């Protein structure tokens, strides 16, 4: 297989396979969660569910003071790499072009050097989370294989993207193919790991807020 063939496979059949697994996995899991159902709450409602749920979706984004003090590294590096990932994924021209081809519309991109800088920041933040995870005793105790796997699978596309852009070590078609394949790996692993939080996060937050709202307590 030549490098151009590899690239064509990654952009064609490889992407098809990854898309099917990713979409099917995510949809089935979300359906399962919703269809589990809840027992009817017979207690009298002491407040609104919807408004409190929606408010909690936003308020939980800001960490409270005690939590921040306790795990500041996790929160800061976590925020940085999430924002960095968002910018690199959704505001770089080639990525927008990809999304436009799939969903039918696009949006303006950021200049390449800006994306490049955010990629570096994201890589550093991701490394910081790993170092923190491995050096902090409690974190290390709580860490299981899935945590390391998801970290690696998230780290890989950023690094391969950075290398592909700067053409380090290999030829451009190979580097681009490797980058696309690393994203496909992420798509395949995604529905079966805690990476699902990208979809369930706001559902869970809303639910927490809604329960509290029903009971008439702060969330």
């Amino acid at each position, binding site marked *: 297989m*030549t*490098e*151009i*063939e590899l*690239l*064509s496979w990654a*952009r*064609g*059949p490889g*992407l*098809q396979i990854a*898309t*099917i697994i990713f*979409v*099917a*996995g*995510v*949809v*089935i*899991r*979300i*359906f*399962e969660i*919703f*269809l*589990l*159902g809840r027992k009817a709450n017979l207690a009298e409602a002491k407040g609104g569910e919807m408004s409190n749920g929606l408010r909690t979706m936003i308020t939980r984004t800001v960490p409270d003071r005690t939590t921040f003090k306790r795990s500041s590294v996790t929160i800061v590096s976590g925020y940085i790499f999430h924002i960095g990932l968002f910018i690199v994924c959704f505001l770089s*021209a*080639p*990525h927008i*072009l*990809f999304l436009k*081809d*799939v*969903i*039918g519309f696009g949006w*303006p*991109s*950021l*200049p*390449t*050097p800006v994306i490049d800088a955010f990629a570096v920041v994201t890589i550093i933040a991701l490394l910081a989370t790993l170092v923190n995870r491995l050096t902090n005793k409690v974190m290390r105790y709580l860490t299981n294989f899935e945590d390391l796997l998801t970290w690696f699978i998230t780290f890989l596309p950023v690094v391969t993207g950075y290398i592909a852009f700067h*053409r380090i070590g290999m*030829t*451009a*078609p190979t580097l*681009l193919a490797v980058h696309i394949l690393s994203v496909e790996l992420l798509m395949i692993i995604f529905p079966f790991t805690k990476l699902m939080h990208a979809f369930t996060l706001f559902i869970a937050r809303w639910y927490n807020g809604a329960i509290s709202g029903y009971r008439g307590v702060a969330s």
Partner: protein
Amino acid sequence: MKKDLSLNDGTPIEGTPEPGTLGETLRSQGVSRRSFMKFCATTASMMALPPSMIPMIAHALENARRPSVIWLSFQECTGCTESLTRAHSPTLESLIFESISLDYHHTLQAASGHAAEAAREAAMEENFGNYLLVVDGSIPLDNPGYSTIAGISNLDMLTESAKGAAAIIAVGTCATYGGIPHANPNPTGAVSVKDIIKDKPIINVPGCPPIPVVITGVLAHYLTFGAIPDLDHIGRPKVFYGQSIHDRCYRRPFYDKGQFAETFDDEGAKKGWCLYKLGCKGPTTYNACATTKWNNGTSFPIESGHPCIGCSEPDFWDGGGFYKALSMPTEDISKTAVYTVAGAAAAGAVIGALNRGKKNNSDKIHIKTTIDDLRK
């Protein structure tokens, strides 16, 4: 009149070249030594050689005996030859080429029929072990009858001609990687020269067609050093194929700034912005177009407003469409996603129903245990 000249390093060389050499041919065509040295300097800089190598190139070229070249054309469109002949007119590169003893070339030779084949056989016999074999076009393996010359299949002619060749230069993407005949579904079972010949040095000069100056540059390198140049991992001379179009593109700053032409006639296209979104394959294509350019250095496709199609890369024809940006999927992912959502929603509903049934069933068969029961 004989006039002594000296090289940069002080070595004296003769002003009048030996008879039968390339130097003599050049003089007879009225090429002055000054313009010849200029050509050597250009060649040296093109091949990224230090200036100290210029006299060596001049010396080697002047004294080179016209090597016999046999040019075989298989499944091709003659575009490579067309490209090369564009270098002819009164340019120096073309004189270099004329000064090679081109003993066999379908399109260019005067002889035809038996006489042509006889010329090839004679050249092969006389120069056995020393001639250069140039091949353009791919070789069909499915059925030898798909492409024959004088009743000889391409495969037979190639293997026979390769035996006595000092080196083989595969010219054009068809000869180097199969090219268009090799494109999906490859009806003739087309393969490249390298797929067949394993025991000879092969220089791949891909492109559809290759840049004329690159073809002559490779020949000049061979004449100068008597060896094949440094090749990359797919057999291309690194001097010409060492950098990607994207890295040397004069429109690169627009890519970096995020300024793209969205269509062929929008404001961006008129301002000469980057053609990435219009499917430019510059980032994954290694060739010298952006530096040596075409038509005597006039321009190259991107400069003319068209994205690079990646013609010097293997399988460029099957790369998912010339006008699809590199980061775009080559297949219809949206359709796949929609069908998958529909299928998965149905599957999710069924799984959800089964889960619910299981839950209801466990509620039904649940037996309450009292403290009295446990005391029993």
